[in-house]
């Protein structure tokens, strides 16, 4: 499964509930299934629609471990 660091307000604008999600300043982490509500035929396109970038599980854990994520 892939994960996306995206713009929090853009993610919320698609009806995704922010409760329980890791966030840092204006960014939020969602998983690929949560982005299914965002238009786009690939994960990369859906991520781009919310100003996001796609990561593997290993990659995103590395970023989380750098700190600052609630």
């Amino acid at each position, binding site marked *: *499964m892939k994960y996306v660091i995206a713009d929090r307000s853009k993610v919320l604008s698609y009806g995704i*509930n922010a*409760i*329980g*999600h890791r966030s840092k300043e204006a960014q939020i982490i969602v*998983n690929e299934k*949560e982005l299914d509500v965002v238009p786009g035929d690939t994960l990369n396109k859906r991520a781009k629609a919310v100003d996001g970038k796609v990561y593997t599980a290993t990659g*995103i854990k590395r970023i*989380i*471990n750098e700190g600052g994520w609630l």
Partner: protein
Amino acid sequence: MRSNKKRIRIDYAPLNVAVSLECLTPLSPALQVFNADNNEYEPDREVTPSTFWPQVVANANDGSWPNQYANFILTQMHWYVDGIEISQHPDWTGQTSGGQALYTIDESGSSSRGALTIRKNVPPTKQYTLHFEGIITDPRLGTNIPIVTDDFILSTEDKSEDAYSISIGDDQIIQYNPFKDKLHLYDYKVAHGLIAASAAAEAAATDENAYLRTINIDVFKADTKLNSGFTIKLYRVNSATSFTEITAGTDEVISISNSAIVLDLRLVTKADYLIRAVLTDSNRPDPQLQFSVNRVYQNYDCRPTNGTSILPSDEQRYDVAMCDSEGQLVECPENILKIIWKTDSAYLANLEHNEGGHTVFSIAKTKIGKNFGDDWLDVYVETEIKEAHCDATDENGNDFTDENGNDLIFN
């Protein structure tokens, strides 16, 4: 001077409290998937945690309770894992690989107060049963109201290539509606001599709504369907952690084989079951699946049909009940409904005559009058859908059987 004092209080209506459990992260749910090929959990709760919320709704009939959503006044909040307070549970005291707590409880004053956010991934071999307990205080009446949610289970499905799985060829929520059961009607008609027994008619009546429910079972290793190497067992779910094995011939269980389970749904009001394929030679966990059976209580209308006047010479009165439901006439409604015949007259109300689809009663018994002002009679039925059948037993609990030793049931 003498005085006499009496203290009176405002008589508030008691608080009606409802609590439900909601997963606020439906795409990080209670069930995870473990992919052994890349050793990853999907989703990984360290990245997208799961949040469960005990929603508390309170209301007073007199309108004296101001806030319907009552989470923000929760106190003494505790989450329990397998009956142990979560902070004391040895599996939940560690940290994630990133050094964060495995869980947090929302202690804010917001509407999500009490929510549990979980960052722990559950190995496929483990499962945890969780529930929430707390208190809300009603200052109007000076009472504390305990809040306890239902249990829910955190578990993980193993999707690796050699994982075992089980599926059933039926809904996981099976509904039984006696109004739609043609086999039940066929049995009734045969038993009452209304039609002759016929294997063809019986087969035609045994459709997807029949009380005899065959639940087909398939066991897979990865994508390969297995025909051997396992034994199917059926359990009744008493609670999230308590199961009782039930075997063929017990109550509603007609038969159990490795390919199907047959239940008699007439004996079930509401029940949860667990099917487990006990593997003969494997160190992997036995695949299992839970399903439930519910009885449907369909809306209906039942009424007397005899609209003729009473002649002075009449001594008895006959009537028959007519029942319809969802636009269809219900045949033999006494098979499904408990129908009690009653009459009211000017001098005797609520007189009960008999139970059944029709009635014949003595007109004199109703105390009907002889004059214009009192020579009327209200004939009516009181009805309810019959409950599930149960085994017929004597006072010592011994089963009544037919001549072939089959248990008799009744409702």
